[in-house]
């Protein structure tokens, strides 16, 4: 039996005005377990707290009930008081007789009556309380960043800057991501390469950062502070540490007709290739699907020309195991496929392109060396039609596109239109829009400049149909302001395709037990207050994997994610919330129901050996809760039919004792 002390607070007249505090402390005196009961003007004051401490010593109290304001207000205060008096802080229960009693009831009699019942419930609960100690787990002081785009790069740099080692896993042969493919960036129009490549070099030169390029995460185990990750390093058939990136092999490779994915297939690369001049790491990679040597053992030219001897046709996929304290997801985005949008003739004409392809066409390092030429015949286009919202803002049941606004299209289309008019003033540029959405610093000004200074023709309306006819594209569109249907003979049509999370995100979320929304964007722990954390502890979100974002927003989120990671890695130990679920192995059936409802993946199953009454042993599958991961919601406790699963601090018996006390 506990020795409970009851402390009734007046809260000045806040409580005492509607509740007879004297009567309450008197009535609660005779409750089971209560050895001391008193009341005081302000329990939370220093004098009030001292009163509690003294009573603990004087009466050897093992439990404390404070009848006062909401536990959301002062539970933490009184827990500290208890701890200072040498009691376990979780031996404190609060009866909320202010917010939920004196402030909502007018009549002294009813107020007092209810306060007594609330006090009884708290006493009934504290009688069943057990001292709780928060679990501690060590923190591996190393972070993993999955994805080497601008989001991953910025996060890694910021974490490394704070002195913690970081590994970047990038599935492509080089880091840089989408930003490396861009030409200029809005709203300042500085070139993407000029601001990105120095950062890539910083990453390469930073001692704290390791880059696993051409690699994927294949397995994740563990929990916050203690992730065990297996990284699959795909065979690139070139020894990374030996290759100097001279490019001699690339020049000699006879396989010249491999579509170049970096230029979105608009030109060709060799079977051995370096994606672009500033690639990091700058090493060659052999495409096993194109290389003759790897396919049928005939060729071997690259090995012969490589003076460094870096080519290794026998290289195998390598698996690396590493421990991490935190994981940052920065898997980014891709434009959606245009296959379902027949009306824009994307698959019928080479001159209907996506905006990302347009970026490559205008990029000095692109397939046309920066000259804006039509992919079909290499001629300069004179009339260009930009179509906004292709696949964005679609109704869910339309099944072609995405429900959300892709956010970046309005700005990059304004940029494309402006740059085109700037370089080629003889070009007619039309932009068909539904709404122009340009919130952001200097964004709307940028768009207005495109219209007012560069003469881009913005038309409120949509393109309904694009028909290739000869070497022109017949564009049929509506102009809603003029209430006219327009027919434009265009040379080039650029589609602002919606963006979607990278396909690797979904399997990764499964490995991480991190939640995702229906669009496969990662869910944040709180949409406003914890926007860079996943609900799964130790997993952080950076960039477009969480939702469409432009570069400034991505970089600031990347920094925010890094600061959260640093905050975690700076700790030597993690102190958990002791109010977590635990499973009674003797009663657990191993039925897996709890595992299915756990939002955090905190429950795993182990095979446990039990001694049977007849001295034999039996191995049974039982649930085991990881207290470092469990957040204490209690979903598992209700789904468990045998009652093996229970929640510390809110145990079945405790809540039932409260029910009984109230219903007496």
């Amino acid at each position, binding site marked *: 039996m506990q020795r409970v002390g009851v402390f009734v607070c007046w809260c000045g007249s806040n409580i005492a005005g509607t509740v007879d505090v004297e009567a309450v402390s008197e009535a609660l005196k005779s409750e089971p377990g209560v050895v001391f009961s008193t009341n005081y003007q302000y329990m939370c004051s220093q004098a009030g707290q001292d009163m509690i401490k003294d009573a603990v010593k004087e009466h050897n109290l093992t439990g404390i009930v404070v009848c006062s304001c909401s536990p959301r207000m002062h539970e933490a205060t009184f827990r500290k008081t208890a701890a200072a008096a040498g009691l376990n802080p979780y031996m404190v229960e609060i009866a909320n007789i202010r917010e939920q009693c004196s402030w909502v009831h007018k009549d002294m009699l009813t107020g007092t009556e209810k306060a007594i019942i609330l006090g009884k419930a708290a006493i009934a609960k504290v009688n069943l309380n057990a001292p709780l100690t928060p679990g501690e787990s060590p923190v591996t002081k190393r972070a993993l960043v999955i994805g080497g785009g601008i989001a991953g790069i910025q996060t890694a740099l910021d974490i490394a800057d704070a002195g913690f080692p970081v590994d970047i896993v990038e599935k492509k042969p080089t880091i840089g991501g989408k930003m490396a493919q861009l030409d200029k960036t809005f709203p300042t129009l500085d070139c993407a390469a000029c601001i990105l490549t120095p950062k890539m070099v910083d990453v390469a030169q930073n001692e704290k950062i390791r880059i696993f390029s051409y690699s994927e995460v294949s397995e994740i185990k563990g929990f916050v502070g203690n992730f065990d990750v297996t990284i699959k390093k795909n065979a690139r058939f070139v020894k990374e540490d030996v290759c100097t990136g001279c490019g001699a092999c690339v020049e000699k490779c006879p396989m010249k007709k491999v579509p170049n994915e970096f230029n979105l297939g608009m030109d060709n690369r060799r079977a051995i290739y370096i994606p672009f001049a500033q690639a990091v790491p700058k090493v060659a990679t052999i495409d096993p699907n194109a290389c003759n040597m790897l396919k049928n053992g005939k060729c071997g030219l690259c090995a012969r020309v490589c003076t460094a001897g870096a080519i290794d046709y026998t290289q195998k996929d390598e698996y690396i195991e590493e421990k991490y304290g935190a994981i940052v997801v920065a898997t980014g985005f891709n434009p959606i496929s245009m296959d379902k949008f027949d*009306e824009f003739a994307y698959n019928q004409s080479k001159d209907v392109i996506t905006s990302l392809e347009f970026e490559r066409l205008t990029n000095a390092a692109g397939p046309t060396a920066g000259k804006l030429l039509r992919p079909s015949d290499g001629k300069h286009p004179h009339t260009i039609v930009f179509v906004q*919202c292709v696949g964005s*803002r*679609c*109704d869910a*049941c*339309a099944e*072609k*596109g995405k429900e959300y606004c892709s956010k970046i299209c309005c700005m990059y289309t304004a940029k494309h239109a402006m740059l085109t008019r700037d370089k080629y003033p003889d070009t007619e540029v039309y932009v068909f829009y*539904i709404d122009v959405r340009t919130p952001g610093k200097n964004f709307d000004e940028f768009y207005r400049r495109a219209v007012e200074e560069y003469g881009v023709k913005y038309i*409120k*309306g*949509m*393109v*309904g*149909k694009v028909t290739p006819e000869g070497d022109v594209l017949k564009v*049929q*569109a*509506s*102009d*809603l302001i003029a*209430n006219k*249907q327009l027919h434009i003979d265009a040379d080039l049509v650029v589609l602002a395709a919606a963006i979607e999370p990278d396909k690797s995100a979904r399997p990764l979320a499964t490995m991480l037990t991190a939640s995702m929304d229906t669009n496969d964007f990662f869910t944040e722990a709180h949409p406003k207050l914890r926007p860079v954390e996943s609900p799964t502890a130790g997993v952080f979100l950076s960039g477009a994997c969480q939702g469409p974002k432009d570069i400034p927003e991505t970089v600031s989120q990347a920094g925010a994610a890094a600061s959260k990671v640093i905050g975690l890695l700076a700790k030597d130990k993690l102190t958990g919330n002791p109010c977590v679920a635990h499973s009674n192995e003797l009663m657990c059936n191993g039925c897996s129901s709890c595992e299915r409802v756990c939002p955090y993946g905190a429950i795993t199953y182990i095979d446990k050996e039990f001694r049977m009454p007849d001295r034999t042993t039996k191995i049974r599958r039982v649930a085991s809760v990881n207290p470092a991961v469990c957040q204490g919601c209690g979903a598992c406790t209700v789904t468990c039919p045998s009652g093996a699963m229970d929640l510390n601090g809110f145990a079945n018996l405790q809540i039932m004792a409260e029910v009984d006390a109230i219903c007496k």
Partner: protein
Amino acid sequence: MDNKEYLREEIIRRSGVNPSKCMRCGKCSATCPAYDEMEYHPHQFVNMVESGDIEPLLNSESLYKCLSCFACIDRCPRNVEPAKLVEAVRLTAIRKQGANRMTADDVPPIIDEDVPPQLLVSAFRKYTK
């Protein structure tokens, strides 16, 4: 409910279309092959039904200019289905007493030898009660 409101509800019920899903992109009008023939264009149809302006639509020739090609339905990003609205308004118009668009007597003078009989039957279905 006044007549205007009644008509609006009736059209929405008959068509099964929710015009408030429209985001005013105008793709229906952009895609419409009969656009130039129409007094009220597909996007206006949606907008006018939404605001309850049915009377002008009922009296408009536009009703009979729609080819029912359903290009607007196919391409609407919001699944609004403008052609179904046109159809519902047209039904409302021809269901009125004596409002048949066409009677059997009208046919012989305009008949064309090359027109397949099936087309005539379906036109009749479309234009009469």
